[in-house]
């Protein structure tokens, strides 16, 4: 009996150890890039490299942020991400709500359409759209890129919002309608506030998706580069501190955002069957 307990204890300890090792596998590379980004520029050229940022310095990050085009690219990235977020919410939330609340003919067909567009190769969309955007005089603009990113993010928004609304009890909305609200008011005053945390997670995910997207960004823009598009195009001519600081600036938002949306990730990717 005692040995069984011991074995269980050892197994538990091993599980924790493994969990920590896997966590280090994820965190260590980010930490090392962070060390590089927060060292002085000349420390980046020293070898062997140091494993703590001492002296701690924002010199390298500042150098990156002051480099040509970077501040404009960051602004563009934020504008594109915010526009994408606005468009997806405007178009996607009603669809998500419809899937969650109504039984209608064609519902499963629509779900299938959404699920299959979720994995649609962006490469196929970007190149013909770039050609068309040039014809329509929409090329190289943050708006057209935001439309492209909306296409990319829309399936996720619809799937998340539908599962978020499905988790808001229907009775509450019905109670509101018996108390004199029409259906739209019931949605606005009851379902929407309750769904807000889930919707916020969907918005953060959309922001990250757009902030990170590089293929469409580099194809669809020339002067109005977003941050990943700019960094990619100057990658082979830029000095090491620029690369390291640029990499860190690009990944920093995800460190914060993933914390807030970790619980909702299963709604974004998880649902295999309804």
């Amino acid at each position, binding site marked *: 009996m005692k040995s069984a307990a011991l074995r269980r204890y050892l197994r538990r300890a091993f599980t924790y150890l493994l969990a920590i090792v896997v966590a280090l596998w994820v965190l260590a590379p980010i930490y090392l890039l962070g060390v590089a980004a927060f060292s002085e520029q000349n420390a980046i050229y020293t070898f062997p490299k140091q494993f703590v940022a001492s002296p701690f310095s924002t010199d390298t990050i500042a150098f990156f942020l002051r480099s040509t085009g970077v501040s404009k690219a960051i602004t563009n990235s934020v504008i594109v991400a915010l526009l994408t977020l606005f468009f997806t919410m405007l178009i996607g939330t009603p669809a998500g709500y419809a899937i969650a609340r*109504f039984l209608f003919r064609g*519902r499963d067909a629509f779900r299938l359409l959404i699920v299959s567009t979720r994995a649609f190769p962006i490469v196929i969309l970007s190149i013909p759209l770039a050609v068309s955007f040039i014809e329509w005089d929409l090329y190289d603009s943050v708006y057209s890129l935001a439309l492209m990113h909306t296409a990319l993010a829309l399936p996720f928004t619809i799937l998340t919002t539908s599962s978020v609304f499905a988790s808001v009890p229907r009775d509450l909305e019905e109670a509101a309608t018996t108390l004199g609200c029409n259906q739209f008011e019931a949605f606005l005053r009851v379902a929407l506030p309750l769904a807000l945390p889930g919707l916020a997670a969907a918005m953060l995910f959309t922001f990250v998706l757009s902030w990170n997207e590089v293929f469409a960004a580099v194809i669809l823009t020339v002067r109005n580069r977003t941050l990943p598009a700019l960094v990619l195009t100057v990658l082979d001519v830029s000095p090491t501190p620029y690369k390291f600081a640029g990499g860190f600036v690009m990944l920093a938002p995800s460190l914060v955002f993933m914390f807030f949306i970790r619980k909702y990730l299963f709604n974004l990717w998880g649902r*295999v069957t309804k």
Partner: protein
Amino acid sequence: MTRRHWQQVTPYLLLLPSTIFILIFFSYPMVESFALAFRADDGGWTLKHFEAMVTDVAFVPAVCTTLLLVVIIIPVQFVLALIMALLIQAKLKFSSIFLYIYSIPLGISELAAGIVWFALFTERGYLNSILINLGLLNTPFIFLSYQNTVWLISAVVLAEAWRATSIVMIILVAGLQSIPNEYLEAADVFGASPWDKVWRVILPLLKPSLQVALILRTILAFQVFAVVLAVTGRGLTLLAAEAYLWYNTYRNPNVAAALATLIMVLSIASTMIYLWGLRTPEEQSL
């Protein structure tokens, strides 16, 4: 219109904007992509863009590297993702923190992940610093040399395994959560080892999740390009990277569209293979 009538129309009105948007932004580019790839300047049909694509010296290496990476990366990712998912489901303390850490890479872009691994593998990078500090090397080893394809591919595989395993983990955790506890308890009652439980109970029940994850990961793997540019420079080339080059550097959208069409065909073919190879008796929707 009557109230009842409205009730019937409402869902369709709510779906209308996204349906229109999807038709414009998915169907139109697909048709346009085929047109770009198959149309000649005089308006007739042609295969000359495909000829240009195939005869380009970089084409065969690009196809080989793309397929090779898919074949190596996907099994590595699935083993790692299954380990992560089982750890998340092991009811550890702080499991929410582990979930956060394991899902961080999901929010990291291809390009940033490529830079992270470039920082590790470059000649004066962290890996060489560690090896020298440990006394295993005297002078830095050049991992990312153009002549050293094995190391180039290994570095990209590690970077992709690091970056893109999170998605698979999330899908598998969701799948694990839907496995009734009774099944695992029953396995315990019959004295199954943890290994047996994974192999005989969990994996068979995870088949639908595995199928979805495989389809998504393979389609996404055909589009990878920024990781490879960041880690290897021009040391390796891939189909999506070629599409980018043809469009941006050679200014030839037709050949770029031909490459995009090829990526599309590969994506559809791999989806069919997974749907057929992992089919389940009951209807399992995607």
